[in-house]
């Protein structure tokens, strides 16, 4: 690697954001160096780890954390994230530090945000406005859908985000439970829709059609589901030099506030330095903050890009609640992918002045494991045990939700006093969920009860604890005013004109849907900006 220690573009992080930028720039002829803190993992190894795993619900465990670049592990808990505040446990997030990033395991939901999500303050008087509008991002949303391979309802279903082109692929046929839910809910006042997903409904981009292994999380064994590793491969084949196990611990800044180098520890713990013309920090919403804060200098006492003191603040996620019940009919969850449909009645409307938007989604995960745990706990044996497992597997319904949350500067990440193996500080998070979200959750609980009643639900069990959904947003927030935001509409830092942040951390509102497609769209926007800057636009 010593022969190429400098590049037009240095990308830090190899998840979907960094890999898209690297792939686009390398294909345009730029020299690209990509640094990834974690190791390379083979898909087949991840699949085998999953199959050898006793707890199939542990999405992190098949990706063993590297010693030098740990990521959160919960079985057992490695306490990588230092969590504080009233709702600390609601930010016990999962993300991966491996080549390819966290989209190795996701549900592949590929939603666009709504136009009003970009102007919450202007329209509803709460939260913040983005520095970019939906219409500006629309072409990039479409490009992202093409790059990731999104299948969606091409049947005229209005998801509230105006589109100019059809989805690259039609949606998959619904599973039995999803179809039954659609039939029942849609005639009872709910709007249940087929989700747009980055999952193949036909062969696409040399990857196969989904064949329903039903373990999208923690790993799609056949790559029918998109993962960032796809664009890592494309980036490398276009000439990007990827260095794995490269833990960036500092960005160097010159007297003109330009970033000149990235310093990292290699696999042997030795410090290395690479230089570049432009730097793209794409190390996820928390690790990117860590690098900016660790890079403080006499001039940049609070860390780079942080003249606004907003780096690390405004942490958001989609606080989730759930319900589980037994339906009075066999619904057979588990055929097809893990999630296919959502209830979208409350994604937008005047109510957002007072309480959070939300999306409810039906869990199509196979229920045999939970059914067996429950049946064993009932003390059953022999044929009665079999019968109970079968009954519960067929009748169990689980619904979950994402709630919007407002950006609050007090919800923040700092550098902890606790250190990792390299002596680098761990992320310390303070988190509290406000009444705006809690009011919405009360309403969600009522909906759960009504839906359970529509299926003659028994053993109704509400899970009111706000679960983390690993959609880490707000930490390097976008805005027009350099005094209260970190990046501008191009995701360029206000403070350093050759430093771009490709991460969900820039997102200025949480909305009620998964953030990956928006990250991808913003990353393609960054790629275009950089191509233009380098004179490599087509």
């Amino acid at each position, binding site marked *: 690697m010593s022969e190429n220690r400098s590049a037009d573009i240095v990308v830090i992080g190899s998840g979907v954001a960094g890999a898209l930028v690297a792939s686009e720039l390398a294909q345009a002829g730029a020299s690209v160096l990509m640094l990834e803190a974690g190791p390379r993992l083979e898909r087949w190894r991840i699949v085998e780890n999953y199959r050898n795993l006793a707890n199939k619900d542990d999405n992190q465990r098949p990706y063993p954390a590297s010693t030098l670049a740990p990521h959160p592990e919960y079985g057992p808990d490695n306490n990588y994230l230092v969590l504080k505040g009233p709702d600390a446990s609601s930010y016990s997030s999962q993300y991966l530090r491996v080549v390819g990033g966290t989209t190795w395991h996701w549900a592949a939901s590929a939603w666009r945000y709504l136009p009003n999500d970009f102007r919450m303050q202007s329209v509803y008087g709460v939260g913040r406005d983005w520095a970019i509008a939906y219409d500006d991002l629309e072409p990039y949303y479409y490009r992202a859908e093409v790059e990731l391979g999104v299948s969606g309802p091409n049947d005229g279903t209005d998801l509230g985000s105006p589109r100019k082109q059809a989805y690259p692929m039609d949606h998959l046929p619904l599973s039995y439970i999803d179809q039954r839910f659609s039939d029942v809910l849609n005639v009872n006042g709910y709007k249940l829709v087929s989700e747009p997903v980055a999952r193949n409904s036909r*062969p696409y981009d040399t990857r196969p059609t989904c064949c329903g292994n039903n373990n999208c999380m923690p790993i799609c064994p056949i790559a029918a589901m998109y993962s960032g590793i796809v664009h890592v491969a494309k980036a490398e084949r276009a000439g990007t030099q990827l260095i794995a196990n490269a833990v960036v611990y500092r960005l160097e800044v010159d007297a003109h506030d330009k970033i000149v180098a990235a310093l990292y520890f290699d696999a042997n713990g030795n410090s290395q330095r690479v230089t570049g013309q432009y730097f793209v920090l794409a190390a996820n919403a928390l690790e990117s903050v860590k690098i900016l804060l660790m890079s403080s200098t006499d001039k940049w006492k609070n860390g780079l890009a942080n003249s606004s003191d907003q780096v690390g603040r405004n942490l958001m996620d989609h606080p989730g609640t759930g319900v589980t019940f037994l339906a009075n009919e066999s619904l057979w969850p588990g055929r097809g992918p893990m999630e296919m449909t959502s209830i979208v009645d409350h994604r937008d409307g005047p109510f957002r002045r007072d309480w959070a938007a939300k999306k409810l989604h039906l869990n199509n995960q196979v229920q045999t494991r939970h059914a067996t745990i429950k049946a064993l706990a009932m003390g059953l044996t022999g044929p009665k045990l079999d019968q109970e497992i079968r009954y519960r597997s067929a009748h169990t319904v689980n619904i979950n939700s994402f709630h919007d949350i407002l950006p609050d500067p007090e919800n923040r990440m700092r550098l902890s006093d606790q250190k990792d193996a390299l002596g680098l500080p761990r992320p310390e998070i303070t988190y509290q969920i406000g009444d705006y979200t809690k009011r919405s959750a009360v309403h969600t609980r009522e909906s759960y009860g009504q839906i359970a009643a529509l299926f003659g639900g028994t053993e109704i069990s509400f899970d009111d604890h706000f679960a983390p959904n690993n959609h880490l947003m707000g930490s390097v927030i976008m805005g027009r005013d350099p005094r209260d935001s970190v990046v501008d509409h191009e995701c360029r830092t206000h403070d350093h004109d050759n430093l771009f942040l490709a991460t969900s951390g820039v997102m200025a509102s949480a909305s009620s849907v998964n953030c990956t497609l928006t990250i991808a769209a913003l990353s393609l926007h960054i790629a275009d900006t950089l191509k233009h800057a380098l004179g490599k636009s087509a």
Partner: protein
Amino acid sequence: MSNLNSIAMCTRLRDLAPSLILSVALAGVLGSTQAQTPSNAEQIKRGAYLATAADCAACHTVPKTGQPFAGGYGIDSPLGTIYSSNITPSKNGGIGAYTEAQFERALREGIRADGAHLYPAMPYTSYAKLSDDDVQALYTYFMQGVPAVDGIAQKTALPFPFNLRFTMAGWNLLFLDHSRFKPEPAQSAAWNRGAYLVGALEHCSACHTPRNVLMAEQEGSPFAGGQLGAWYAPNLTSDPVSGLGGWSEPEIVQYLRTGQLAGRAQAAGPMAEAVQDSLQFLTDDDLKAIATYLKTVPAIHLANETQAPYTFGAAANDEVLLRGTAPISDSTIPLNPAELFSANCASCHQSKGLGTQDQYYPSLAHNTALGHANPSNLVAVILHGVNRTVDGHTVFMPGFGADSLVTSLSDDEIAALSNYTLQRFGNPAAHVSTADVAMVRDGGPQPLLGRVSAWLRRIADFW
């Protein structure tokens, strides 16, 4: 010449131009209509069918993006890239200025209007058998039924000595049989039609007959099976072990029409293209005729095959032995081949390897890809996958080669996986080495002519 041979092999399925054979067969079958003069519209329609049977578009149309028959499709060969020509009726870019005699000469003798020799990527040795009627119908179709596309397709520029097109004259002297298809009066009309289809139009022998050192089809071994780059085109003779002796005529028809016969074989690589672009469009009568004829091809037994390739294998059950023993790992080295199989194959082909109930994901047991003594097709399928669209339905398996977006497996891993699947589901006597995988990855065994040509080029450079 080695260029020519290699090219012929690489491209055989792509540009099986030889609609000739079909027309001869037609002559036999349609004897009663022969005497009448068909209308122009009928001639065009018949010519279109013949062009499909001969799969002209496979080479003369750039897949997906190209205009029909406008040429310019680059066919890789060990000798260099050969570009197909524009065969639309454009007068400046295509063959619009060709007389019927010139068209016939190109088709049957491989000689262009300007007198230059074609490379035998164009299967004119098969098309030489075409009937006069069929040549005429093809001419009518290409002149009147195909939209003209102006613009000369990219020209082929092979390195020395293959740039010397006149050398083909010598090759033709040795290997081009100018005789037309002659019906066997003792055989049925269907048999004769099948012989014509197989021999002239579909040019089956181009792949399924082994080649000699000058890359011409071996005279003594028709349909004994041949190597086509990375792929093995199996024995089509009536031998019950090595060939199609154990296949019924309806089974052959189903395979040719769909590319899939559960418990037997699935078409991949060049054969998938032949099914997709040509065979699926043939009439039932023509497919039956092909089957009728193939069942009578004199048996040639391959000494290293003692059991029919589709009879090997049984369900595997290693999954239970794998679980609960291995720790969570970040190793890039597999513990054993069963692990590679489980992770890379079993998600579709199922842990027992018997595929799904509907056989969309086929069983690996009782599958010719794993049953031949020559395991090239198994390795080629792992590297390149399967992509076959028949009647609007696509059968797709991803490849695991260097350009895979699913998983790139190494030569060692593919060799281990091949040997594991051969032992469990296929011919246990077959074996795949790491070097074998590297060779298939590199396009298959290099014909002698290709190897010799490298020497010739060195000598030429020296001069």
